[in-house]
């Protein structure tokens, strides 16, 4: 299964066996990460995500695999989880 080609797949490995509660928790966690890059994620009917930047530009993504490619394109820079500033922000929050 490919983290980059997630849209081609029916069920992403990181989102299997999870229900509504897990999805809400996932979106909350993702928003802590995405806020660092000026992005915000919303859940649309529990089926897809809507990713927005601060200018109001929005894209619909199907799952976690597709999310990071779309987020990089929208933020205009790489989204690296090893970025020390991001790690510090997550620890502080």
């Amino acid at each position, binding site marked *: 299964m490919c983290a980059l080609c997630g849209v081609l797949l029916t069920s992403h490995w990181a989102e299997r066996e999870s229900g509504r509660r897990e999805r809400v*928790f996932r979106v909350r966690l993702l928003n802590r990460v995405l806020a660092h890059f000026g992005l915000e994620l919303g859940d649309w009917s529990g089926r897809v995500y809507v990713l927005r930047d601060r200018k109001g530009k929005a894209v619909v993504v199907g799952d976690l695999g597709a999310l990071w490619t779309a987020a990089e394109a929208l933020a205009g820079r790489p989204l690296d989880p090893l970025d020390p500033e991001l*790690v510090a922000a997550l620890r502080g929050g």
Partner: protein
Amino acid sequence: MAERLPVVLVTGFLGSGKTTLLSRLLRLPELGETAVIVNELGEVGIDHHLLRRVDERTVLLGNGCLCCTLRGDLADELRDLLSRRTRGEIPPFRRVLVETTGLADPAPVLNTLLAEPVVKHHFEPGAVIATVDALNGSRQLDREPETLKQVVVADRLVVTKTDVAERGAVNELAERLRGLNPAADLLEASFGEADPALLLAPGSLDPRHLRLPEEPEHSDVHPFVLFLDRPVDWIGFGIWLTMLLGSRGADVLRVKGLLDVGAPGPVILNAVQHVVHPPEHLDTWPDEDHRSRIVFIARGIEREAVERSLEAFAMS
């Protein structure tokens, strides 16, 4: 859904003895009911009733990522094997062995098994076996990027031609292989003789085997192991790993591990670059040590940075 059939991959550089190993294996009664797919009909003839030859053909997907290509030849062949088995044209089989060319990248084969719409419902990846020649393996590791990739991706490393190489050279190569891929089991084989039970069994990731050499390989590719004493939040871990593979997947050659997610048993992790096996939740731990243990084999990525980041995402 019917049980998926394992597809065991035999890889290794040109002349490293994979065909010899394969032909020996196929003579064993416990390897009956096995279909075989090869890219090349090598010098050592394999006499087998379910032998098929394919020409390597990759389908590059839109994002241009090499590890996410699909092997169209393999998908066609696996689908054809299923159809012919259903029609009764070939005997039933319980597993498939695929021998790749010496230059093949194993990642697209694994991606095909996990992502191709028809194939993924009928087959699943079995062990990845890489042969490394005791006489030439060290030189090939220095010069051939394909050999390094095959070694890093393997679940079993088989050092071949040990009957003609000096014992010291065999030990030196074995030590180097352990240093490159501590998550793999290491076996020796002379004239293709290897224990099929050891070769084909699922890996255990025994923590006692996850010790790295004191002097690491002088290469930008290096393994490291994280042992974590506290449970990991599975949702946070999923976010973290997808993000890591999204941004650094080309340099994260391998992730393999057992993860404590606060359940009675661990989750088995296995990823080759962007290709992630569906994680499997076990009912119990395979040994007494219940710590998470994750082996990373990466290029230019430091252990401390990975550990700090993982803790921030999934352990805070």
